[in-house]
């Protein structure tokens, strides 16, 4: 085995150009696979971070009845004891914010646009979401400036509204009566989530309760409590962390429905698997090309060494030894190509992580997210790519190796 390995490796090195071409094709396949996966993971990461920061938060507490009926954004299925819920969240050392979601129509007295409005606690909300940091004109809501609202920048543009303008908001009260009131635009938000920019509408809880005709004070209407969790090192770590926090909160709040980011972003994450398999297609094509390259390289090696095979047989190597010899050549090629592939893949990963790609340069707002896409380290994918490359080489090497093993020693020795 040692001798066979020595001969195999030296032959691989001797036919430098053939080896390099084959190994490079393999390298391209594996490194594309790795960096593609890194990019996809980064994209997911970004999407899920955006969901946590701008739309849904990291963890939501609602009543089971509310979630059941979520399509109609019911106002009669709020949390029974919102203060206790917030206290339970605070007891875990986590920031939490109460919100009411309701359907509203926003008007500049000429045009009207329906929105899903969020009534927020201005200061608590700023500790859970990053909306306050995304204000591009004017200011975020504050208790010092009542009867103010904040709009997504796109929405404001569509309604030709600016900071300081008056806006008419219409909604159904808890008694199912239409009510309307006038507010001042305090600020505009521009986030990496186009959905928020196009439809975001934020109003202080106190003002919303007046509009919805629901009493203030202890036990006042809250449809959900949103919780922020510390930033995790990876997407999967974020999901694990969310699940753990959900378990702890369920113990403290047995009656409520608690959904961590893993469930909140479930539909998005399901989409990702479909995406990931498309990404594999070019990689599989490249690896098939390199498999053909390996078959060819080793076949050439077999044909250029027929008499050598005869000598080894004459000195007592069995046909199995010969098969092993050329399989080892395939393995040597596979190890070379896969190692190069992982090395280049890691290099591309590090470029993607350090530099990132500005998505704005690629699409004019057609992607559901924007900002700088950064890759993620993916040691598991590197391992998979490496093993895959080696296995492909071993399988490819079987064809020429079997041909070499079938040569009769006398025929091989007569070969010129």
């Amino acid at each position: 085995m040692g001798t066979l390995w020595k001969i195999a490796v030296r032959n691989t090195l001797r036919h430098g150009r053939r080896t390099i071409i084959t190994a490079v094709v393999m390298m391209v396949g594996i490194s594309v696979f790795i960096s593609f996966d890194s990019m996809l993971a980064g994209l997911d990461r970004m999407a899920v971070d955006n969901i946590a920061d701008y739309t849904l938060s990291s963890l939501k507490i609602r009543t089971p009845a509310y979630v059941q009926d979520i399509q109609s954004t019911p106002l009669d299925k709020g949390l029974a004891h919102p203060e206790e819920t917030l206290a339970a969240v605070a007891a875990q050392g986590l920031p939490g914010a109460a919100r009411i979601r309701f359907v509203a129509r926003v008007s500049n007295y000429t045009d009207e646009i329906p929105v899903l409005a969020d009534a927020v606690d201005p200061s608590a909300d700023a500790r859970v979401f990053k909306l306050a940091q995304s204000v591009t004109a004017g200011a975020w809501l504050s208790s010092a400036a009542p009867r103010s609202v904040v709009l997504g920048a796109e929405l404001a543009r569509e309604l030709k509204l600016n900071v300081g303008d008056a806006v008419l908001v219409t909604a159904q009260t808890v008694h199912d009566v239409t009510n309307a009131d006038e507010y001042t635009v305090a600020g505009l938000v521009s986030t990496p989530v186009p959905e928020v920019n196009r439809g975001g509408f934020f109003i202080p809880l106190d003002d919303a309760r007046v509009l919805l005709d629901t009493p203030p004070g202890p036990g006042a209407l809250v449809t959900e409590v949103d919780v922020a969790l510390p930033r995790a090192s990876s997407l999967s770590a974020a999901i694990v962390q969310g699940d753990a926090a959900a378990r702890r909160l369920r113990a403290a709040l047995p009656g409520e429905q608690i959904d961590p980011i893993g469930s909140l972003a479930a539909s998005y994450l399901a989409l990702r698997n479909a995406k990931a398999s498309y990404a594999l297609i070019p990689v599989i094509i490249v690896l098939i090309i390199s498999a053909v390259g390996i078959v060819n390289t080793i076949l050439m090696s077999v044909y250029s060494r027929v008499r050598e095979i005869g000598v080894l047989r004459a000195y007592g190597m069995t046909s199995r030894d010969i098969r092993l010899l050329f399989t080892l050549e395939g393995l040597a090629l596979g190890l070379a190509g896969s190692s190069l592939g992982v090395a280049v893949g890691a290099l591309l990963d590090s470029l993607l992580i350090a530099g990132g790609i500005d998505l704005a340069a690629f699409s004019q707002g057609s992607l559901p997210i924007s900002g700088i896409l950064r890759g993620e380290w993916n040691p598991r994918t590197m391992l998979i790519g490496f093993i895959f490359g080696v296995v492909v080489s071993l399988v490819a090497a079987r064809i020429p190796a079997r041909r070499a093993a079938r040569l009769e020693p006398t025929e091989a020795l007569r070969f010129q």
Partner: protein
Amino acid sequence: MTALHLEHVTKVYRKGENEVRALDGIDIDIEAGEFLAVVGPSGSGKTTLLNILGCLDAPTDGRIVYDGTELRGLGEKGMSAYRRERISFVFQSYNLIPVLTVRENVELPLLIERRLDSREIRRRADEMIAAVGLSGKEDRHPRELSGGQEQRVAIARALVKQPLVILADEPTANLDSRTAQEIVDLMHGINAARGSTFVFSTHDRLVMEHARRVVTIQDGRVTADEQRNPPSEAGK
């Protein structure tokens, strides 16, 4: 002691309708320590005979007794094992493994045999390299050697495992006559000094003259089998 005993050995190659009788009833006894030349025109069956002696090929008919045991119906594995332990080859075109050094080439039969530890293997290889006069070239590669030197390495490779017989099919056909002479002298010297049994084929008259026994075959039959007194031995 009889190293190889051949009785009515016949080899027939079939090519569709055609039948080639490469060997047609060969009877010979080869004693241990012999220095035997098989001569005859091209196509007479020399290579076929050596292949059968070397357990690379099985006869169609007849029997061979190797060192007192008859090998029959051994199958590929058994024949490989027998070759591994008892038979060595020297080829017309040297056939060294190009990626291995001189020493590694000489070590190869012992590495395939897997009987000795690596230190002993190396010791024996270096001893054989010295015996063929190539000390100092252990770490060279075959491409750095002349044809004559390559064939010396091949002879060292054949000798390293102390085989029952060393089979050399036209070992000098690729060499100029002076180098051919040197190679035959070397083989002869080893035969005399170590008692190794050599069977070689040739159609070179000069080489033939060094043999102590010359078996002539024609159309697969032995037509002459003569003992000689080679000139190099006359003086001894």
